């Protein structure tokens, strides 16, 4: 039953949609130009008078193009996607904003996270009346922000390394694993920062 919405068992290859090799660093403006070029061709508006079969095909192709662009345009989503393609990450663990929720606290953060959670609990129950608690949370925020920046830099470096490995004809499987751990760490840090932000600036 060929129609626009038939799901396919295999995962779509977003790199192939844009005729790009599987590399983690890419030229986003160039990607966007190609996205616009293909949109002009594939958009359902162009098929408003066509046969039903053609309309459905256009709908399917356009949604795939949109999905591909959305994923490849964002550096983190791109890495997550590549790991999915490589079978390194499990797809059914979903969290907010497509960021996978890491189940474990990264070992090296254990103590800091423990202290942070205590401070957060105190802040949540007693409010931010104690200036000491507030100071602690602001400091923690700065610390974790710094750690996040280190992780992002590491991700960029490992991504470049993976590309080099691909160019050299190597599999780079270990690099993929490293990327996966970095993503877990990043996800965890972002969640922490979000928790702190919510407590420091309560929603209106």
């Amino acid at each position: 039953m060929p129609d626009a919405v038939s799901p396919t068992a295999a995962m779509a290859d977003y790199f192939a949609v844009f005729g790009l090799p599987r590399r983690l660093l890419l030229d986003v403006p160039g990607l966007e130009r190609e996205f616009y070029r293909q949109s002009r061709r594939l958009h359902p508006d162009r098929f408003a008078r066509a046969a039903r079969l053609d309309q459905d095909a256009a709908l399917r192709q356009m949604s795939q193009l949109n999905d591909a662009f959305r994923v490849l345009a964002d550096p983190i989503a791109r890495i997550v996607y590549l790991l999915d393609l490589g079978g390194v990450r499990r797809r059914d663990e979903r969290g907010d904003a497509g960021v996978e929720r890491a189940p474990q606290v990264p070992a090296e953060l254990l103590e800091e996270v423990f202290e942070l959670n205590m401070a957060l609990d105190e802040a949540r129950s007693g409010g931010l009346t104690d200036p000491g608690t507030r100071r602690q949370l602001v400091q923690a925020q700065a610390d974790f922000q710094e750690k996040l920046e280190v992780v992002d830099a590491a991700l960029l470096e490992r991504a470049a390394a993976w590309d080099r490995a691909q160019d050299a004809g190597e599999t780079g499987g270990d690099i993929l694993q490293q990327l996966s751990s970095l993503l877990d760490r990043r996800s965890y840090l972002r969640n922490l920062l979000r928790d702190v932000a919510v407590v420091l600036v309560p929603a209106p």
Partner: protein
Amino acid sequence: MAERVIGIDLGTTNSLVAYMEGQTPVVIPGEDGLNLVPSIVALTPAGDVVVGNPARKWLIEAPERAIYSVKRLMGRSQADVRDEIERFHFRVVEESGGEAGIVRLRLGERILTPPEISAYILRQLKRNAERYFGAPVRHAVITVPAYFNDAQRQATVDAGRIAGLEVLRIVNEPTAAALAYGLDKKRQGTFAVYDLGGGTFDVSILRLEDSEGESLFHVQATNGDTHLGGDDIDNLLLTIALDDIRGDLGADYFRSATVVQGLRAQVIAAKIALSTASSARLEFVLPNGKKYRREITRTQFEELISPTLDRTVPPCRAALADAKLTGTVDEVVLVGGSTRIPRVQQLVQELFGRQPHCGLNPDEVVAVGAAVQAGILSGGGSQDMLLLDVTPLSLGIETMGGVVARIIHRNSTIPASATEHFTTWVEGQTNVAIHVLQGERELAKDCRSLARFDLREIPPMAAGLPRIAVKFLIDANGILNVSAIEERTGQAAAIQVKPTYGLNDDQVEQMILDSFDNAEEDLRQRQVVEARNEAQLILDAVERARRDPAFATIAPAEQARIAELEAELRSQMASEDYGLMRTKIEALNDGTRHLAELMMNSALKAALQGRNVQEVG
């Protein structure tokens, strides 16, 4: 498609229809020559449905026979509209569906759903276009607020179908405005559209790319509030007036529909006046004869509406954040009558750091944009423009513990899709239930329930073995389509959709059939009404002729014959047989021809000859 595709702005307060004449958009006027058709629907005691300006008088004289701002009720449940209905005079009919069921309103002797009421407005616009072209019209593009959810969009498509229109595309109003603007300006850059209509508020951030002679509109983010608009400003003034009256004159008219509607008209006029004058007056004669009068200054007005206008700020900030802009937008486009208020223009400048662009008519810009899109779809004209719009709300499915798993994120470019996998828990299970929601909250109970899908006819297997891939596709209209396939057997699972807040397909089909009958009925009714009017006019003319000196000069036999024909016509007037009525009118015409010739009055002569009866003073 040799037939034209029309673009329709189905507004809360006013509706319009437009089309593309080559590269030029043209707004199609109604019979009265006006472009704006008030979104008011009335049912006359004779059983005719009237739309637009003619309906206005019913709103004031017999409010139970009229409904306005029905857009605020589209795609919403009885529970949803409970608070809102308080401020309207409409009566909601309690249904067996209970609180969760679709809204049904009483209009005179009939009970109608919001899509049916909207269909009357659409049908009027369709007729206006057909009259203008001298040809049938069956396809349309209809606009909706960008922030409309799936149920509200579906309700609009349903209304179109009931009106006999195939809706080729549902377009977001700010995007339509952008198309109109882009047609006009063809300038690259980012811009914001601030759309404050009668009942809804939308803000969209777009990028306009111009390359190789083609314009591409790429929506970056959209946000809004589907219950915020000019109506709320009207209600503030109305409440003040009614409070005044209760306090000063000791009479409570909050429940009096006629007073409320009369005052409302006054309040709206004052509001409009305050956009150019520094003060305005409210004046109204109450049923008890007392006169209510009040001055309102612009300063007082601005203070009063400030909290309402402030509600537009968070959506604007959210959209700017989601669009990830670096710096200010290049241009701001204003849409909707309410943006004529000076304080609104000021607020827009503060929010976006730009003087708003006021070159386009805020009342017509959306209809023009709809026409541009209609042109794109009909393959004529604007082939050099393309629209990439987004879905305003995240789509999710309810998982264990009532938590929402988000599968398509807000501001994703549409069409957008996501595939999720499901399985069974029980041996031989052939059905799986899925609950789909829209919204940004974590828990299902805080989000908007879209529909419950039942996946059926799953091949029976051991528990956990089936691997059902469900594809969720949000199409170019922003409406959800779902399909499912069991991957092991490759068998498609049948899907039954139970929309939470809408009409199901059977109900719409029935309404289309009913409206078909009604269309015939409406047409017939119109013929009867027209014939009756014609009959009355000639009878009146003959009455006047009797008092003319010339009457006395004609033979008694002729006088008797005229009297006989009059009586025959009179007795025919109560019937529904307009054909027979016309025959009797003709007979009376012939019978008085001699008399007419005798009379010196040329106007009367024209009337009795049956020419231009309407022109008889």
